[in-house]
């Protein structure tokens, strides 16, 4: 797929923040926003400066809606850094780490990276995707020290 890039680069701390928030959210889905730098064309570089846990306004095990107030906080955090929101992450409590039809239908920004953490089996599985025009492309994930 032409848009199967960039590599999402998370620090170990960010990775742990995301996974811990997903477990904390059980039995409901958990969600959060990624803040990071973008290129002149709006494409994310793949680096995440912040992984911001947000509340799931749906409080549901099968759907999520990022609490708008938390979204506002993420937008302000991005602006303060001179960066943008570059993605969203959420958990799948009982299914694989792959975008559901609802995820594809709800994907709001073609430039975002969509991260899904599956808690279906013993160990969490984190994968990342781009979603454009209902097409899904998986992107690599690198967990860096930090």
């Amino acid at each position, binding site marked *: 797929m032409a848009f199967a890039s960039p590599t999402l680069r998370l620090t170990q701390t960010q990775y742990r923040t995301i996974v811990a928030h997903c477990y904390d959210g059980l039995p409901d889905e958990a969600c959060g926003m990624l803040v990071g730098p973008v290129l002149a064309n709006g494409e994310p570089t793949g680096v995440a400066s912040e992984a911001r846990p947000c509340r799931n306004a749906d409080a549901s095990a*099968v759907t999520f809606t*990022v609490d708008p107030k938390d979204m506002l906080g993420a937008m302000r955090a991005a*602006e303060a850094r001179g960066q*943008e929101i570059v993605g*969203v992450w959420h958990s799948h409590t009982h299914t694989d780490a792959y975008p559901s039809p*609802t*995820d594809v239908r709800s994907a709001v*920004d073609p*430039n975002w990276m969509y991260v899904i953490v599956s808690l279906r089996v013993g160990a969490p599985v984190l994968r990342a995707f781009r979603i454009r025009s209902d097409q899904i492309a998986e992107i690599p994930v690198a967990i860096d020290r930090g």
Partner: protein
Amino acid sequence: MSVEVKLPTVLRTHTDGRPSVAVEGSTVGEVFQALTARYPGLTGNLLADSGELHKFVNVYKDDDDIRYLEGLDTKVADGDVLTVMPAVAGG
């Protein structure tokens, strides 16, 4: 009244890439009217056919969701900031 409207990245294709736009108006509805007159591509993204705020959009006046104020009739003052955000959801 000059109000700053901040837009999410996904809507900036309609504002020549501008992340924020200064617009005149005394209510959110008037601000959006002026904004969409200048950038018509935003219309269907901000407002439903009924003229109400699009259900997939959230608008904050400073720290307050306008749906919990007076919606599009919410008054704005000089220097207020309106932040437009997409509803981010999935399953």
